[in-house]
């Protein structure tokens, strides 16, 4: 039985005129504890797919199953980090995280809730900004609050849409390490959208590459864990995988380029 399963799911935006927006007949199975990275060109439907998994987009056909049961909406077994950070602007960074913790219902005691929030604020390097409102935080800081909120909710499944997109390289590396450790330790099932091949290779057990509306390829990443940016380079399997991904990822672009010049 899979943790997360999509059976022949199609979703098209009702507001959109063109049939080319959305996703078309996608099936996919993700076992418990697997870290899945989703790669693909902009506008191919990655966020759409993630919103289907989150239960926000109700598919016109096909079924979504979690632990073998059909699911029709959002639930606390999934925590989501959106591409837009979408914090509540009327709550401070800390209050936003506490809101998530309260919703998740894991801790009843208020002091415990605050402690957990402080823990994740510290982990994401936000202790100094804990009492600021989102309006006065930078994009990267808001993104980190959203990540902290999702992690603190302690869901089995993490759905993350370019969660490190607005971060500087150093913070990004720190949070990659944090996420990778946390998911290893707690056996979380993750679907993680990214534009970075290196990031996908660092984090993923499997990489899925999307072409418009479809899943094009699924590639297992068999690099040894724990992975680290430096040790990864030393792994003999790394260059081959990277080249493979690059050629898959830039498939169309590479085809066009090869016609007029050899690069």
């Amino acid at each position, binding site marked *: 039985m899979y943790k997360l399963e999509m059976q022949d799911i199609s979703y098209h935006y009702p507001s959109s005129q063109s049939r080319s927006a959305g996703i078309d007949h996608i099936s996919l199975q993700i076992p418990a504890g697997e870290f899945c990275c989703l790669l693909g060109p902009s506008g191919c439907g990655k966020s759409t797919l993630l919103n289907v998994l989150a239960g926000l987009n109700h598919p016109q056909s096909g079924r979504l199953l979690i632990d073998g049961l059909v699911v029709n909406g959002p639930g606390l077994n999934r925590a989501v980090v959106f591409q837009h950070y*979408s914090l509540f602007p009327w709550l401070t960074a800390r209050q936003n995280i506490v809101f998530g913790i309260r919703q998740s219902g894991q801790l009843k005691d208020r002091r415990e809730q605050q402690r957990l929030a402080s823990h994740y604020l510290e982990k994401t390097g936000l202790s100094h900004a804990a009492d600021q409102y989102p309006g006065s935080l930078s994009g990267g800081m808001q993104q980190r609050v959203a990540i902290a909120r999702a992690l603190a909710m302690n869901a089995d499944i993490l759905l993350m849409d370019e969660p490190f997109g607005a971060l500087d390289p150093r913070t990004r590396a720190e949070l990659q390490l944090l996420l990778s450790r946390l998911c290893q330790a707690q056996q979380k099932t993750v679907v993680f959208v990214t534009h970075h091949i290196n990031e996908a290779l660092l984090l993923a057990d499997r990489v899925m590459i999307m072409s418009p509306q479809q899943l094009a390829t699924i590639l297992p990443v068999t690099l040894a864990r724990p992975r680290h940016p430096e040790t990864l380079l030393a792994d003999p399997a790394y260059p081959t995988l990277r080249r493979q991904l690059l050629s898959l990822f830039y498939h169309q672009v590479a085809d066009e380029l090869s016609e007029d010049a050899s690069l």
Partner: protein
Amino acid sequence: MKYGYSLVTGLYLLAISVVWLVPASRSLDSPLAYLSLLSLIELAFLISYARHHQKSSLLLIWDILSRLNLTHPVLLPPPENVFHVFITQRRLMIQGVISSLKLLAAGTGLALITGVALGLPVGWIPRLRQVVLPIANCLSPIPPLVYTPYVVAVMPSFKAASIFVIFCAVFWPTFQNMAYRAGNIDRRIIQSAQVMAVSTPGMLFKVILPYCLPGIMASLNGSIRVALLCLTGAELLGASSGLGYFVKKYSDYADYTKVIAGIILMGAVVTLLISLLRRLQQVLVRWQDN
């Protein structure tokens, strides 16, 4: 600023010396209240460094004019007498302020609660919005002042009438603002709440309400003035206490000293109320200024 300061203090001293030195040509009440008001203004200025000299000089001109007998004794009474009213009539005035504020609080509170409670679902549920909003858009632009006399005449008691008028002044802006903002709430905020499995009451009161609060406060800021306008209007027509009643009663007796005192009191109450509201707004929607 230094120049302004010396000007104000100069005016203050001048005003005091005028009171003591220029012989009065008609009978006056005790100048105590007037002098203490002058001192209060001077003190307020010293503390805040605000531009109070305009008020002070206005008072001085008024004082000098009436002292030199240049003004009509009944229509523009001397300032000593006007401010002395605040001492002699303080019971009635305080009573008036309290009864007016009570009505205002009742009407505004009722309007806020129903405006929010009805505006929330109307804005949130598309079908309800399509039905209700056109009707609301048709009813809401009628200024409450227009039907105030009618309501006062029709309602069983003055209390009910004035609460109703205040209610109308505050309800429509609150309701419309609420419905509009709840209908146009950022979809991403709703999604963010949905994935955290926020229940329907939670969605209404923990998400949509705080999201709409700045709009409610902003509309209240405007509508409370209209409400005060309507209330005093209603009080002129048929009250037995209140700020408007105070003015109306003495203008019937042509006692313009007390009428002017009543008007000044009204101005002070309105100013105080609005600045209080602004403070409340700053505290409640602190997050928005960032």
